[in-house]
């Protein structure tokens, strides 16, 4: 919680007095915050928005503090939804949150679809390793590798520079995009990229983590990158209300302590805990990550998501495979179309669709019961079933039709034939490919971070963003993934022991045992 209680109480009193003094300017919540302000943020961009500890639900930063002040100003409770950057604007559009505040710069292109209200000035910086000579213009980056965060507007802006470079007959700036800001910085630290693009406020904060390993080599004056903005769905009245609220916070002096706290302007209290990136592998970080509740919880979510989704997928795929091996018909064509569609569409797209597009068609999916876990479970199950149908169909088809015939002739019903004769044999054929699918599904669950599921990789990235000790956290995540995968490979071996009947030699030793 920001600030001691007394400060808040004081501010409240100020606010109330302000309201009494100016009865015309009542702080009524705008429509996007009616009944509660839900905020979408990608907490990987300190000091604007990040996780300042090992508990990944404990958000911190300028954006978080500003959101809380806005909530207080409007007398509404504030809740945060953290997700991958790519998921922010689709979520806003889908009505999953009232506003996006995530260190996003104000950008005319974004204002076509959303309203933006600036709350903090900033400036773009080009950063390289310490000791790199400053450059005089963006054109000096010609032919060099520049790392930027994907989903941000930096890449598009730099692409404009490339148009000019091409006209001048010079090689373009080579743009590499990475999903999180910390990965962008890493590219420069490890020497793959010459420089990266960031915002000055963020860099100032990073410098303490990086022990001065990087420095600003250029500060391009792009007018469209001068302000961080809060984004809301288009609504002139909401926009005015938000702008009024930000102005009121500033005028009443509430912004200053926030900016001081996060060292954007000098003064205020000491920097809150920020681990420093040590050189060499920090075994203590690694060990504490490994046993931290955050990692264990992330791994449990990953495991539960993969197991539940795959079981559901198998449950869906078995009847579909039975239809696929039957006579032609409408149902069979429908399943064929389903399989084609869901194998063709990227899983990431399907996740974003279920989470963000579905609520636009059916408002019930906007309600609280439709959690990221449920959404990921549904979309991964439906996606996985499309692959599993093919595995199951092939396995069923591989069973000699004489088996079903014998079952029929013995008086078994169709269901008894499947249950006692066909499925046990088909399981043997389907098992290896099914386990392969499952192992790749474990890894696919990491995509669900775009819809704010706090699975293992999301937890890892949030911790890396906080501390910059990426090797240690990646290694800890790897251990968890390895444990999970090896466990299931062991399970596969156990199950396969029961298939000795299919092999004359093994059947003999099995019978002898």
């Amino acid at each position: 919680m920001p600030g001691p209680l007394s400060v808040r109480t004081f501010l409240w009193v100020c606010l109330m007095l302000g309201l009494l003094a100016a009865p015309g300017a009542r702080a009524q919540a705008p429509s996007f915050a009616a009944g509660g302000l839900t905020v979408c943020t990608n907490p990987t961009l300190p000091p604007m928005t990040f996780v300042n500890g090992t508990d990944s639900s404990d958000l911190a930063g300028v954006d978080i503090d500003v959101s809380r002040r806005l909530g207080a100003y409007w007398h509404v409770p504030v809740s945060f939804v953290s997700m991958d950057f790519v998921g922010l604007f689709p979520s806003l559009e889908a009505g999953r949150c009232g506003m996006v505040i995530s260190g996003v710069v104000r950008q005319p292109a974004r204002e076509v679809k959303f309203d933006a209200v600036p709350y903090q000035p900033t400036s773009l910086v080009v950063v390289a390793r310490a000791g790199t000579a400053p450059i005089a213009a963006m054109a000096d980056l010609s032919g060099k590798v520049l790392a930027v965060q994907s989903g941000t507007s930096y890449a598009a802006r730099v692409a404009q520079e490339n148009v000019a470079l091409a006209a001048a007959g010079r090689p373009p700036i080579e743009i590499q995009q990475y999903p999180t800001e910390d990965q962008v910085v890493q590219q420069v630290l490890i020497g793959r990229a010459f420089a990266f693009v960031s915002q000055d406020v963020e860099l100032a904060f990073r410098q303490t983590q990086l022990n001065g390993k990087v420095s600003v080599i250029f500060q391009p004056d792009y007018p469209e990158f001068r302000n961080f903005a809060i984004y809301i769905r288009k609504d002139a009245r909401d926009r005015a209300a938000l702008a009024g609220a930000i102005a009121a916070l500033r005028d009443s002096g509430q912004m200053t302590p926030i900016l001081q706290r996060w060292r954007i302007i000098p003064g205020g209290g000491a920097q809150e805990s920020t681990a420093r990136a040590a050189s060499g592998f920090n075994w203590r970080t690694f060990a504490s990550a490994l046993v931290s509740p955050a990692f264990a919880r992330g791994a449990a979510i990953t495991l539960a998501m993969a197991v539940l989704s795959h079981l559901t997928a198998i449950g869906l795929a078995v009847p579909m495979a039975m239809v696929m091996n039957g006579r032609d018909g409408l149902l069979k064509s429908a399943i064929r179309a389903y399989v084609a569609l869901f194998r063709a569409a990227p899983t990431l797209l399907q996740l974003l669709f279920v989470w963000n597009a579905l609520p636009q068609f059916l408002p019930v999916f906007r309600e609280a019961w439709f959690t990221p876990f449920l959404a990921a479970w549904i979309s991964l199950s439906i996606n996985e079933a499309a692959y599993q149908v093919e595995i199951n169909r092939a396995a069923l088809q591989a069973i000699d039709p004489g088996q079903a015939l014998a079952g029929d002739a013995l008086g078994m019903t169709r269901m008894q034939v499947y249950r006692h004769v066909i499925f046990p044999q088909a399981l043997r054929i389907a098992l290896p490919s099914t386990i392969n699918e499952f192992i790749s599904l474990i890894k696919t669950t990491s995509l669900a971070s775009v819809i704010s599921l706090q699975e293992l990789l999301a937890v890892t990235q949030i911790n890396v963003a906080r501390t910059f000790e990426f090797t240690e956290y990646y290694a800890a995540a790897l251990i968890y993934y390895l444990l999970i995968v090896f466990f299931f490979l062991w399970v596969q071996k156990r199950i396969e022991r029961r298939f000795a009947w299919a092999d004359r030699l093994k059947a003999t030793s099995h019978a002898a045992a």
Partner: protein
Amino acid sequence: MPQPDAAPMIEVRNLQKSYGDFAVLRNVSFSVARGEKIVILGPSGSGKSTLIRCFNRIEPHDAGEIVIDGERIDQTTELTRLRCTVGMVFQNYNLFPHLSVLENCALPPRVVKKAGREAAEDLAMNFLHRVNIADQARKYPIQLSGGQQQRVAIARALCMQPSVMLFDEPTAALDPEAVSGVADIMASLSADGMTTLCVTHEMGFARRIADRIIFMDQGRILESAPPEDFFTRPRTDRARDFLSQMIRY
């Protein structure tokens, strides 16, 4: 020769069946007495398998009448009950490879007749003794020879305690030595009064077990006679041609 009962076990009248335009069975009529052993001979594609598959309704017929043990077989017939009465053995045994010999035999009584596990296994062991293979009860089908597997398949069908047994070329996939073992079992079934219909290409086998030979060609029954008569004095040219070809083998 067993004394046929007054009411026949199987009565077939004007049986017809086609696959699309192709008529597989054309007006087949005959009857089988209780305890009678019929061997069905005929060239490949003449409709022998189709005919016997109509009796347990694995193939539904198009027209005509089948009456088994006094009951008409049609779309209203309860299939489970019919198939408890009429057992079938296939050319390729079709044992369940994932089950032991004992489980192969005990599974059908358990799931179809809802017998308890112990009762079903006792029954299975009993019939495995009958076909002289009880010592292999714990093995999987893959560990057995073809002749052994076919004996297990017979035991499995017998576990349903049927009144009629249908055999579709039960020895066609076997070594000559294995054939006699299966023939012995079928002969012993005869002694117990089981009504059997057997499709085969083994003339010696047919001669040994048959009370009566039915000769089919192109979906019709051309001859129906005791084996001595059929093999020594076939009445039709088609039967004569068929026999001469068989002997050439």
